[in-house]
């Protein structure tokens, strides 16, 4: 449904900062979270839609219901 977690410290060393030749953020000082969800799945639960493919068929009989 929804992946969430703490950002891997390796990511920070790849974050460019404004300073020239910056090695990126220091993971000893910076930490953060990331999460994200597929809106299709939320909508499936909310509207009782049985199949993800319905979203991409663009059948008017489907579209007209929303």
């Amino acid at each position, binding site marked *: 449904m929804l992946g969430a977690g703490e950002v891997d410290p390796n990511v920070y060393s790849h974050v460019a900062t404004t300073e020239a030749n910056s090695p990126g953020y220091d993971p000893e000082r910076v930490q953060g979270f990331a999460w994200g969800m597929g809106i299709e799945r939320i909508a499936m639960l909310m509207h009782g839609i049985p199949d993800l493919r319905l979203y*991409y068929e663009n059948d008017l009989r489907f*579209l007209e219901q929303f």
Partner: protein
Amino acid sequence: MRVPETWLREYCDPDLDVAGVEERLTMTGTKVEAIHHHGVPSTENLVVGRVLSAERHPDADRLKVCTVDLGEESPATIVCGAPNVAAGQTVAVARPGARMPDGSKLKQAKLRGVVSEGMILAAAELEIGPGGEGIMVLDDAMLDADRSTDRRSNEISDRPAPGTPLADVLPISTEVIELEVTPNRPDCLGVYGVARELHAATGTPLAPEPWREDQGSSGAVTGAEVTVQCPDLCPRFTARVFENVTIAPSPPWLAARLSAAGQRPINNVVDITNYAMLLTGQPLHAFDLDRVGGARLTVRRAGAGEHVITLDGQTRTLDAEMVVIEDADGPTSIAGLMGGERSEVQPETTRVLLEVANWHGPNIHRTSWALGLRSEASGRFEKGLAPEQCLWAQAIATRLMIECCGASVTPGTIDIGGEGAPPPAIGLRETRVRAILGIEIPRARQAEILNALDFHTAEVDDGLQATPPPVRREDVTREIDLIEEVARIDGLERLPITLPARRGAAGRLTHAQRVRRSAEDALVGRGLHEIVGWSFAEPTLLDRLLLGPDHPLRSVLRIENPLSEDQSIMRPTLLGSLLDTARHNASRGGPDLAIFESGAVYRAAGEDSDGDRPADEHHELGVLLSGELEPPSWRGRRGEADFFAAKALLGSLLDRFHVHWSVREAAHWPFLHPGRSAEIVVHRSSAEPRLAETGMLAEGECLPASVGFLGEVHPRVAESWDLERTATFAIDLGILATVAPEVVSFTAFGPFPALRQDLAVTLPVEVSARELLHLVRRAGAEMLDTAEIFDVYTGAQVGAGRRSLALTMSFRALERTLTDEDVAPVRERIIAALSELGGELRG
């Protein structure tokens, strides 16, 4: 990975039902995909029986009437059709009332006049073995391996007593836990690895590793020889030799476990390799040693173009980065993927060479991808197993080869490469655990968790030093990885819930996003349906849109590694998905539809008239109207989806954003009807907007920007999508957003009424309405408020090549009411300007 619950509980048996096990595994990071049931739905009325007699049925040649001791006072009479039933056998019996795996209930039956009080079962009837001839005979070797070993060592009765519940001696009913194992955890592709997770997640004791006692030995082996020429791709190769092997069906307990785990039982040797793999995670391969040329195996890189016939009978062509195993007669297997036909175990095999090797994961992945060949083994090797696992699998297989195949193991083990480098110890600072997790986990608890996961720990000043077990050496290399282990086992669900401070964290949509949403809402409000298409498109779309070889829309971004040819370019226009959707619906719901899509379109980097152009992605809004605009009614037709219908819709949309727009003839779009298409232009102006509209600005001050196209779809294009008359427009919402004012400024209007005058003029037909109005507005200057064309006439009275246009104009001044005299000079200027275009005033 399918883990039979009964098998799992042999190593870790928490006081939880299967749902509880599922919950703990999922919460600690080993996701349970599904729980299946395997075998009979209920173990009732299934018992062990002993056949006391088996006589020919008086009225049927193929049936036997048996008396079977079921542990009760008098034996039961059972009619049996199996050819192998005989007095003295211990068998599995279903009594009336027993439920079979398909859910059916067994009833007492009369067979050719003899009442049968049950059924003697075959392995397939219990879903614990292949369908074969005859009933399953339960002698001691066929029962649970551990139990039979115990019994033999105690030298007591070798068979279960009649009447014993069958479930006590055979795994005839189990739940199967299907796990989604992430690629970093190949150790969880073995039942024992999962048991260790369950042990850590529940605190329930874990049985010792089942490979701890090894009946094999180390040292040199006589009778077989192995050479590894590419140790970079084969870190470890181990092999053992077994003699006096008898190939036979596997004992029921083994067949039952494999069946429940989703592996088809084949014969004892093959089943043992699969069993050892499912338990340890490590694949094995059995060679018929007498069919290995020269009793010698060489592991080497393949020659480019070399062929191997694999077990599935297919000839595979290899390249120089793939690894083969060959004997004196040539290649026999593709390393890590599939064995060869030539040295496969046969029914008459008596000597087995058991290979357990470790392969370089990325190389196996590459080979598997390149050959389009995936196997259970390659799916494991490609994730990177630990070299240590080789001997685990050898130990399990050796025990079973001795017990189930009557084999003897030749002393010694061929072992090339040996164990991997010991994993280094990693520091785990207490302060860091607290900083990352936000809670205190006592040092002792951290150590307990890591020890349960088979890490070694030692205490140091600022925390712990932890050494991962070999199977985790690729996965756990940093302090943060240790913290993850501690956190997931201690329970992420136990972390407190806090909300971040939200000072200054308010978000809002950008202007461009608001324009986009407003445009979409406007179209929905006009009764259109929004569709969503794929960004990937088919290259033939460009041909079907009749785009010439040099058309700018031909410079598409190509996908480097497309899933298929029909998804190999990034779409340069929304028209493809709009037309596809129109066709899909026309064939299902009828031809009338009004749809739009709002999405990104792409163009490749390249050169154009302005020089280098970077790759471009912008947000486009595309509309498609087809068929009748409204359903037929008694009030008449509203009309078809034509140029004017599309233009009206475009106008209602653009006017909403207060942009100054116009359309002009253009032939840039070959997919549009040549006579019914136009370019949409919006006017950027740094000056007062009304001036731009009146055309008072010089060209440089009023920059027209092309934002898209409008028109009817070319009949040939419409036809190739099986559509009739279809109109469309598309605009670049990015440009629209830059032109649309974020805040509309008020324009003053005076209290004085406008003066309205009409004008009829004949003009050559080449003069467009746009040109005419542009000129009129320019000549009318500030005093002219509006000018519109309200009638068009062509015919004999105006002459060939000309047409008559009727204009209505209103004049207005801020400070006074205008009179005809005030307007007269302006009117003269307009008429003069018209005559420049060849216009003549009509009487």
